[in-house]
């Protein structure tokens, strides 16, 4: 132990709030980083809030540039009368729920598989994690060009081989195609969380149940599943936070359109993706932030309850 840490341990606990206490002196070096984070994340956000009350447009969007005006809450009122925003919301909900539930299901199954010992487990685990390590754009491109393509896609080659007609997956089923890619990418993430849950299960209880003659399905239902509940919640919430912002797959595979434009993509279309109406796009973005904060609050609550349980154990 170094001298400084030893000195710190002798300090009474109550003095930690004093700004000149050693606890604060140790935090001080973090301050530049904190200020930097505030400057690059919160200031732009404040500017977006300001923009959301104006009719700011890109200079390329009018032959005679109009001056930017304050428009009050017009942009916000417009959100609720905009059928495309409602459509995008609905798509977001469907996309997120489907992707999260499916990847959680598949992830749990893989986790249960990996929880056993078998020959080559390390290799299988690495292979199963790989999709998560791929850049989302690359994953979407691979799926679009090599799997779904109706001209040279593997899936259609297989269908033709079995005597079926080709299916234009992405054009005919845009949402299902995107969800497939999202599930493929996020299953490893869920699998890792569920694996952590499974491996934190006390072995003695399982052994006791075994000795008492419980069936393996019974053990899973009565013991493992309740134990996994918190991990399932955590996976679902973290997954939702990430998948709700899905953008790459949509941009690469369909470029938007009915059934595949979710809220982030719609905000992009309204702003730098072609609409160049920064005022109303800012308003959309802020509504999205509010929704995300609500979800994130739930996520944090679950996380903290998880740690509280850990402490008790």
């Amino acid at each position, binding site marked *: 132990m170094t001298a400084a840490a030893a000195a710190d341990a002798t300090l009474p606990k109550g003095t930690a709030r004093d700004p000149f206490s050693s606890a604060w002196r140790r935090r001080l070096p973090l301050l530049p980083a904190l200020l930097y984070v505030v400057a690059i994340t919160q200031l732009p956000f404040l500017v977006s809030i300001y923009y959301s009350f104006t009719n700011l447009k*890109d200079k*390329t969007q009018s032959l005679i540039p109009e001056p930017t005006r304050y428009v009050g809450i017009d942009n916000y009122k417009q959100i609720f009368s905009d*059928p495309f925003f409602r459509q995008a919301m609905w798509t977001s909900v469907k996309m997120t729920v489907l992707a999260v539930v499916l990847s959680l299901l598949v992830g749990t199954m893989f986790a249960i598989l990996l929880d056993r010992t078998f020959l080559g487990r390390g290799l299988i685990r690495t292979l199963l994690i790989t999709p998560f390590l791929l850049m989302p754009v690359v994953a979407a491109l691979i799926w679009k060009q090599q799997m779904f393509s109706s001209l040279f896609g593997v899936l259609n080659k297989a269908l033709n081989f079995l005597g079926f007609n080709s299916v234009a997956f*992405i*054009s005919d089923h845009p949402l299902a195609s995107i969800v497939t890619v999202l599930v493929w990418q996020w299953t490893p993430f869920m699998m890792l969380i569920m694996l952590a849950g499974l491996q934190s299960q006390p072995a003695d209880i399982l052994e006791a149940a075994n000795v008492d003659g419980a069936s393996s399905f019974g053990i899973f239902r009565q013991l493992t599943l309740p134990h996994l509940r918190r991990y399932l919640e955590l996976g679902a919430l973290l997954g939702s936070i990430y998948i709700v912002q899905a953008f790459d797959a949509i941009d690469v595979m369909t470029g938007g359109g*009915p059934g595949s434009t979710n809220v982030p993509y719609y905000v992009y279309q309204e702003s730098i*993706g*072609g609409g160049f109406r920064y005022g109303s796009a800012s308003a959309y973005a802020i509504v999205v932030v509010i929704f995300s904060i609500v979800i994130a609050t739930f996520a944090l609550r679950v996380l903290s309850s998880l740690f509280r349980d850990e402490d008790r154990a």
Partner: protein
Amino acid sequence: MQNRWTGSVRRRRTLGVALTVAVAAIATSFVAAASGGGSRQKTISVAIVANPQMQDIARLTPSLFTKKTGIKVKYTILDEGRLRQVTTRDVGSGGKAFDAVMIGPYEAPQFGSAGLIKDLTSMAKSDKAYRYQDLIPAVRNALSAKGHLYASPFYGESSFLMYRKDVLRKNGIKLPLHPTWQRVAQVARKINSSSMAGICLRGKPGWGDLGASFTTVLNTFGGTWWSAKSNGKPDKAQVNQPAFKTALDFYAKLVQDAGEKDAANSSFNECLSQYQAGKVAMWYDATVAAGVLEASDSPVKGKNGFAFAPHYKTPSTGWLWTWALAIPRSSPDPADAWTYIAWATGPQYLKAAGSRVKGGWASIPPGTRVSTYRIPQYKRAAKSFAGITLAAMKAAPITHPGTTKRPGLPGVQYVGIPQFQDVGNRCTQLFSAVIAGSIKDTAALSQCQNIASKAIR
């Protein structure tokens, strides 16, 4: 304790030295990059569209341009839709990412009048080797506003119908030089088979993709996106009018009945590869495709017939487009950018490219200069399509594309107002879904009417 203390000080000191060295190294590398880029080797950044002729010039630039001028060219090659987003964003925000960008007659007059790109007129006129007067007038006018040239054309095109002569002959069909859409649809349905689709029509969302092909059909079916006020401003969205529905239904039905596979994902490049692979018998698209189909390395060379863009209620319907290079107002190095543009779009490149590009003379960038059509080697290689290309470009009805007055600046396959980019993109997403069969035409039209009327409010 004493030993450990001095040890940690020494360690800290080494760490400090290492940090200083690292920071210094990073700083000097920045300085070196900045000065090295400026003085010894000049570099310009250019954004171009990913079509065959542009890929050729990107390959030839080091040997034909950089060697002579010492200016290195860094290309960013993007597909049409993405190029538009990138250039509009960069030009509009005064970004410094590009010294030259590739735009078309939709953007050039609009950006030019708004003062977002440089006026090239004086540079073009004073540069003897560039030969300003040699530019095809229709193309030059399309890239100008009030007599000022804002972009220099790299290639120019109209649209027409390409077809496999051998396939039509086998079916006992002869197409006239000026076919109607009804006749083309009838032929497409007749020759359509499971191994070869009747016709390839663009179905990929994007105003310059599906939007371009469809708008030429819309024009000749008597429809329009917006009506115009007498002062040229857009008046009311016309997407809910019967003519619009007739045109959309005709287009979507034709693609569904006799079109290419996965039409909702197909545009110029996809149709090109399907036509070359013998998977479609006819193809309505840009005239510039002919150069690729008749190139010396093309699998369908010599098998192609060409007809003017199909018509219905208007006599000529072909579009006018040109991919042209412009200098953003914020370009860090406009003089070098012009040196590059004058070379890339000048008559010398066309002559030099003919013997160097893979496809031979037929595949040099067409439709920009009168002199191109006087090069003997080009005349020989492009015999089957050079004449009809030039005639189609001259006939392109850019001031009166349809049956009614259009708002904004002149244009055939687009409406010359800034809002069209967004409206065209979002509506073609809906129309593409109609072609794929995932939504109904009536639903798409009412949503598109909503988009189009909101945009001009």
